[in-house]
């Protein structure tokens, strides 16, 4: 909404605001890097390497192909894990919010299972699936599941009864029909927000998912940190952040497109 306001108030004014924010943001980052550099002068490289050292390492890893490999490895379990967890979470959230019967049956189970963090499931992942992409995907799916479940549940639960009244009076007779034509569109803002949050959360979970020996960016960070190669650690954290940025920006663009009606 505020972006609209900016452009509506006139090109010059809008550009000024945007430009200002960009400059201030850049200043903030530059200041941070400057502080980091100063601090690194007073610390050995295994505690805090200089920004330049990290940059060199980053380029080195990129050029050697190690970064690309790690990225592909992580995506191999991140993607299916996210897709499965998101789909199941949304499906279950919608079903339990819509059907009183299903909700009554499942509510105590949900209560009990909810607080289990994905990390605690590592044992199950290893025992049931194994130390492989499948096991890692399992952890990631667990991360996606609850966020999407609660978002979808909340979204469907809060759909006003009047929308359903209108839908029925205009000829939608079946439950499926109502869910498809009224409930899901009405709950789409909450559901899409859940999907977006889940995607980001899952990406950050790759470290936990890879902790028991599955290759990827998280594994790289863990081994480097064990070897006190802090520059490598920072370089790969940067990679993670960059990927997150790309992901989130992409999903945000889709979100704005789909929810342009708001």
């Amino acid at each position, binding site marked *: 909404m505020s972006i609209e306001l900016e452009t509506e108030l006139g090109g010059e004014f809008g550009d000024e605001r945007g430009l200002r924010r960009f400059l201030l943001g850049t200043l903030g980052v530059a200041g941070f890097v400057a502080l980091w550099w100063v601090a690194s002068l007073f610390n050995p490289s295994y505690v805090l390497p200089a920004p330049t050292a990290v940059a060199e390492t980053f380029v080195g890893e990129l050029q050697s192909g190690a970064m690309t490999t790690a990225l592909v490895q992580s995506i191999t379990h991140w993607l299916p894990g996210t897709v499965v967890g998101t789909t199941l979470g949304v499906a279950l959230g919608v079903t339990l919010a819509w059907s009183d019967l299903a909700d009554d049956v499942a509510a105590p189970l949900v209560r009990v299972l909810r607080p289990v963090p994905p990390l605690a499931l590592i044992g199950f992942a290893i025992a049931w699936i194994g130390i492989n992409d499948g096991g890692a995907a399992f952890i990631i799916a667990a991360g996606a599941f609850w966020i999407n479940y609660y978002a979808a549940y909340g979204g469907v639960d809060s759909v*006003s009864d*009047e*929308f359903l*009244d*209108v*839908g*029925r*009076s*205009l*000829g*939608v007779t079946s439950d499926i*029909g109502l869910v498809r*034509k*009224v409930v899901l*569109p*009405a709950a*789409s803002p909450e559901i899409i927000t859940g999907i977006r949050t889940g995607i980001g959360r899952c990406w950050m979970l790759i470290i936990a998912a890879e902790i028991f020996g599955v290759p990827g960016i998280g594994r790289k960070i863990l081994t480097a940190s064990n070897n006190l190669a802090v520059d490598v650690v920072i370089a790969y954290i940067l990679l993670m952040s960059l990927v997150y940025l790309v992901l989130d920006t992409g999903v945000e663009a889709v979100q704005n497109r789909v929810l342009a*009606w*708001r």
Partner: protein
Amino acid sequence: MTVAGVSKTYEGDAGPVRALDDVSFEVEDGEFVCIVGPSGCGKTTLFRIIGGLEGATNGDVLLSGEPVTGPSPDLGIVFQEYHLFPWRSVRGNVAFGLEQLGMAAGERRDRVDEMLELVGLGGSGDSYPSRLSGGMKQRVAIARALAVDPELLLMDEPFGSVDAQTRDMLHRELLDVWGETEKTVLFVTHDVEEAVKLADRIVVMTPGPGSVREVVDVELARPRSRTDEAFAAYQEQVLDLIRE
């Protein structure tokens, strides 16, 4: 449309509550009937029962001889809060019922155009509800209900959320639409002046448990002016009935 001995009791916090008590009246084809009563007289409950959104505890509602068992496109409903689907454009909202009827896309488009012209929104088809004023939204709601050619158009205080000037304009437009489509309209309101302005007949309800006190025939030629003596007399008459 016949309302025959409709009663409604529901479970309240402190025991059963009688919302409606033996409500009976008839509405002829093409009539404009208003239901008037003080708050708490159960007129919204009655509205929902006639519209098939709720069931009556006793009694029946008959539409062209057939009992009303649930909501249907034959019972067009317009609510006070519009309840337009925000994720659909104006055209999308009006077309919703037509999609349910399985109408072909080309036919739908024509029908939607027709409806939008009828309510004076010809150029606004591609706008979304979030961008519309209250008056425009209500017009869309009316077009949406009328698109499926209902036997009865039910309206529950539809102009309660708009300002007085917009309401006057919407009154005129509604009467125009009614004249053009020759629909049967059942209009619920607490505003006696509005009722006298619009209705052929006014069903006056008693406060809870609601029942019909009297049905008043409004024999005034349209367009009606509230400064008219006869108009004021009818208003007095209805107000007295409510106050009794």
